């Protein structure tokens, strides 16, 4: 687990530090939209878990485990290249919803990624056990998503 964490953080650092690398035009927009796609995948998998947690669909241990493992895989992915400097909403306009503070206060955001790693790891551990364990783990994930959105995502 620790190594995944380290490599993710290293990767984010590498991109943030090595700005100005020559990349083809439009790469900032592409990075921002790829980032949003990852966020959508977070939401999709949480939707499966959440539907059970809130009682909209019946609990199924396999579906729950699969969704939780997907979430953990997404969170463990090397996301460095998705967060290049200059892909904030001030620079890109509506394409992005990322605050410039992500880069100006770096590495503060890595704390937020770590928090999500903790939440997703716990979820992957317990989602397949029973409904109560899944329900108990939702708040930890929700708090981690919100913790980053609170400071680093453009206000509505």
């Amino acid at each position, binding site marked *: 687990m620790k190594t995944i964490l380290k490599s993710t953080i290293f990767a984010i650092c590498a991109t943030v530090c090595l700005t100005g690398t020559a990349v083809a035009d439009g790469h900032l927009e592409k990075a921002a939209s790829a980032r949003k796609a990852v966020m959508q995948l*977070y*939401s*999709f998998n*949480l*939707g499966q878990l*959440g539907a059970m*947690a*809130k*009682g*909209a669909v019946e609990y199924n241990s396999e579906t729950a485990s699969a969704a939780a493992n997907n979430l953990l895989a997404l969170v463990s992915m090397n996301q460095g290249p998705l967060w290049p400097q200059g892909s904030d909403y001030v620079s890109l306009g509506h394409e992005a919803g990322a605050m410039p503070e992500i880069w100006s206060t770096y590495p*503060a955001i890595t*704390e937020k990624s770590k*928090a999500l790693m903790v939440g997703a790891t716990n979820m992957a551990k317990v989602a397949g056990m029973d409904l109560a364990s899944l329900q108990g783990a*939702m*708040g930890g994930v*929700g*708090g981690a*998503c*919100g*913790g980053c*959105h*609170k400071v680093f*995502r*453009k*206000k*509505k």
Partner: protein
Amino acid sequence: MKMFKKLAEFLLPAIALGGVVFWYLTAPEYVSDDLLAGMENGDAIAGETIFWAGGCASCHGPTGKKAAGAAENKSAQFVLGGGHGLNTPFGTFYVPNISSDPKHGIGSWTGKQFANAMLKGVSPDGSHYYPAFPYTSYAKMDVKDVADLWAFMKELPAAANSNKSHDIWLPFKLRRGLGLWKMLYLNNDRMVEFENPDEKLARGQYLVESVAHCGECHTPRNIIGGFDKKRWLAGGPSPDGDGNIPNITPHDSGLGNWSLNDIVYSLESGFTPEFDSFGGSMTDVQQNMAKLSASDREAIGIYLKAVLPVASKPK
């Protein structure tokens, strides 16, 4: 010269009379002593619920570096040293230290003084508080809940720090003038009238309109900072000038598509029905709501479903 004297004879008493009227109208009001008889005998355990519902830590709690992760760490939120800057159209207010420290906080206050701050917006030395402290909502609280909250707060740790003074426009520095504002906006009126509300709805109304002060953010204000009552909970531009606050009435442009369960679950988990997560200042509010009982969250949802639907204004 004669002219001037005549004018002065007329104007000076008028100004003096105006001054007397102003002084009279802006005088602080207090809660009557007999209502406050139980202020020192609150129940600290019940007070913790009020503390979270009231969101005291979201404003008076840890700031800056210390705030990182504080929302998830319950005991860190019990250190009420203040210092947080609140941006408003009138300037920046720095939240005071309300910890149990007798010198820097409110540890030397009596229960009556605390009750008058919460219910009347009046400080121990008789000056008016700015409504950046959302006492216009807290004023509708039951005295018993204020007593319980006081019992709980006395048990919290002391923080020995002082904070910056408010950085606000000159005319607003005169606290006495706030008395006029209070005449308009400080009262016990309900924001919504229901015919025979059941227990749950009444509880939801009490939480949303008073203790949890949802309207302080979700209701747009007029130019002098009072609620636009017709647009109760209908959202609008954020008062701190950054972004928009969503409409949470049951209109289609608000929570119309959210089921009761969606609302209740969002308060528990921080997830919208699409499983996006709350952002901005709502994350702190949600963390507080997650600490209430399931039945209180349900009551809030029932109330939000019952208020008048109001269409959002185009941005």
